[in-house]
């Protein structure tokens, strides 16, 4: 693989955003360019993923400055996999946005900002430098601030205040952690820090840095007790925006946890315990929160919190099976959560409401659509052989292996409550008799819009459902990839070697 390919998922999104900025105000063209560009991005990232899978870890140094002095971009299996999933979710949301996001928002640069957000996500997944990770995080949150406030409705602004404050605070804490790490090791390259940190005698300072990372990423990935901003803000922007937020933004936090706590703070017992405790409480509080909500978007927001717990628990347990479980859960969750918010958007368009009391009778009107909605909903629960089933098996296995019965209990509790919630949503949306309440008058409903737009609404949901069906039925393949990632995470020597001693430079 030519190492230059690693830059392209990031650069291509940048060039796409620049092209869209030139097309400011030409809304129709922007839609077409965004969809076409997202398709190319999927091809590029698929190429990166398959080549990484074939040739092993690829690294490239920006500006040709050798590591650890320059900024390294690293494409290992985990990074390239997440880049591929980001592009897939990006394509789906781009198509959905072209139908659902209204003209006024498009005029103020919805699509350029959306593609810069995707660039930030790709950059965060690919970078091998701690400070660069911070910069990508900032790119992501600045874009997300714009997307969450675009339209400036009252509820959006109220949600944005909380979202902004907590995310900015998280960045400040993350930066503090970087300062401490830099003071301790004098390096910013993740692989280099991983070597240097082992030699530090004052473990207390290392633990302080670890806790700072825990809090900083914890806010971003919505871990108990730092998640309150999420259900307060994720239901306020348009559904296409919620979809990309719910599917990917919190997962960047999980990815950062996976990287930092396997590469830098591996084997720290205190942090393990902290992660497991926080994860158990996240599962319980997220599930209970989702149970009592009546707003479909809020139910899904709380389910994000609940399932973040599933992933963090695997990182906390820290065995190979657990990491494999976390990674395969991550794959499944990105696809399904993005899809769920798109489904919420579709239901809103069909019924003019997202309150569980007012939606209903979907099966009577649109039997095929209800069947389609069943795929993401029941994948989320993990009814075998749909996609949520296999990662849960790995996580259950890891919990029994390490004899952590609290974790096992929380996992079962979370899964059962998810089942109850999904059954509730299914019954309310699909089977229940429609309530007599009329939708808001000025809203253009699903059966009133043109056929092309209806296709654009349904197509991304079909795409993501197909992906999640593949994850479920092709579980063998997914489990193999997750196993490879887990092996890499348990033993990061290959990663360190690839970054610091690429071919041509002698290893120590």
């Amino acid at each position: 693989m030519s190492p230059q390919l690693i830059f392209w998922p990031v650069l291509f999104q940048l060039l796409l955003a620049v092209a869209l900025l030139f097309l400011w105000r030409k809304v129709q063209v922007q839609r077409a360019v965004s969809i076409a560009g997202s398709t190319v991005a999927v091809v590029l990232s698929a190429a990166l993923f398959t080549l990484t899978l074939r040739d092993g870890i690829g690294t490239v140094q920006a500006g040709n400055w050798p590591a650890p002095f320059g900024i390294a971009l690293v494409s290992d299996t985990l990074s390239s996999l997440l880049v591929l999933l980001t592009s897939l979710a990006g394509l789906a949301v781009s198509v959905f946005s072209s139908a659902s996001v209204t003209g006024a928002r498009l005029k103020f640069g919805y699509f350029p900002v959306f593609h810069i957000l995707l660039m930030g996500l790709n950059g965060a997944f690919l970078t091998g430098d701690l400070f660069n990770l911070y910069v990508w995080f900032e790119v992501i949150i600045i874009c997300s601030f714009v997307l969450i406030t675009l339209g400036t409705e009252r509820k959006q602004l109220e949600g944005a205040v909380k979202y902004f404050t907590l995310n900015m605070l998280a960045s400040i804490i993350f930066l503090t952690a970087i300062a401490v790490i830099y003071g301790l090791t004098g390096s910013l390259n993740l692989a280099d820090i991983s070597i240097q940190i082992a030699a530090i005698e004052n473990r207390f300072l290392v633990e302080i840095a670890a806790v700072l990372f825990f809090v900083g990423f914890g806010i971003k990935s919505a871990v108990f007790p730092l998640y309150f901003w999420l259900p307060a803000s994720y239901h306020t922007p348009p559904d296409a925006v919620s979809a990309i937020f719910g599917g990917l933004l919190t997962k960047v936090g999980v990815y950062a946890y996976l990287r930092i706590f396997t590469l830098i703070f591996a084997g720290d017992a205190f942090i393990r315990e902290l992660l497991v405790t926080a994860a158990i409480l996240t599962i319980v509080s997220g599930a209970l929160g989702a149970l009592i909500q009546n707003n479909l978007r809020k139910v899904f927001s709380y389910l994000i919190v609940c399932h973040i717990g599933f992933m963090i628990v695997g990182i906390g347990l820290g065995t190979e099976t657990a990491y494999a479980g976390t990674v395969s859960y991550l794959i499944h969750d990105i696809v399904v959560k993005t899809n769920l918010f798109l489904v919420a958007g579709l239901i809103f368009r069909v019924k003019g409401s997202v309150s569980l009391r007012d939606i209903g009778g979907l099966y009577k009107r649109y039997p095929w659509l209800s069947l389609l909605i069943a795929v993401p909903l029941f994948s989320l629960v993990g009814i075998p052989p749909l996609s949520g089933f296999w990662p849960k098996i790995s996580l259950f296995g890891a919990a029994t292996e390490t004899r952590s019965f609290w974790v096992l209990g929380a996992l079962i509790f979370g899964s059962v409550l998810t089942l109850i919630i999904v059954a509730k949503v299914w019954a309310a949306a699909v089977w229940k008799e429609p309530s007599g309440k009329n939708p808001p008058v000025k809203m253009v409903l699903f059966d009133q819009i043109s056929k092309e737009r209806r296709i654009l609404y349904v197509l991304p949901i079909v795409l993501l459902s197909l992906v999640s069906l593949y994850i479920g039925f092709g579980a063998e393949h997914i489990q193999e990839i997750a196993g490879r990632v887990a092996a890499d995470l348990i033993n990061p020597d290959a990663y360190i070697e690839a970054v610091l001693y690429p071919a041509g430079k002698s290893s120590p």
Partner: protein
Amino acid sequence: MHLLLAIFTGILYAAGIYMILRRSLVKLIIGLVLLGNGVNLLIFLMGSLVKGGPPIIPEASKVIEGPFDDPIPQALILTAIVISFGLQSFAIILLKRTYQVVKTDDLDEINTTDEFA
């Protein structure tokens, strides 16, 4: 100088945290600004500070002689300052719009999105 910087960093963090715990939206943003400056000072402090030893190679020689200051924290701080400039200007506009729409800057009253419906 290290001690002085450490004390200033502490003061900035303390003042920032105090301010973000207040109920007013304006004070919240001032708090975030103070915290941001505190972090920048902390990064500055964390590099090996050397007084009067700029990391510049004299034209006559090929290497730096004597102890020299670490240039990386300054690059990091510069980046962090530019980023926080962007975020802070966004915060101020957000504040202005929120005040126009919600007509209050009391954070206890900006809670309709949390209400159970």
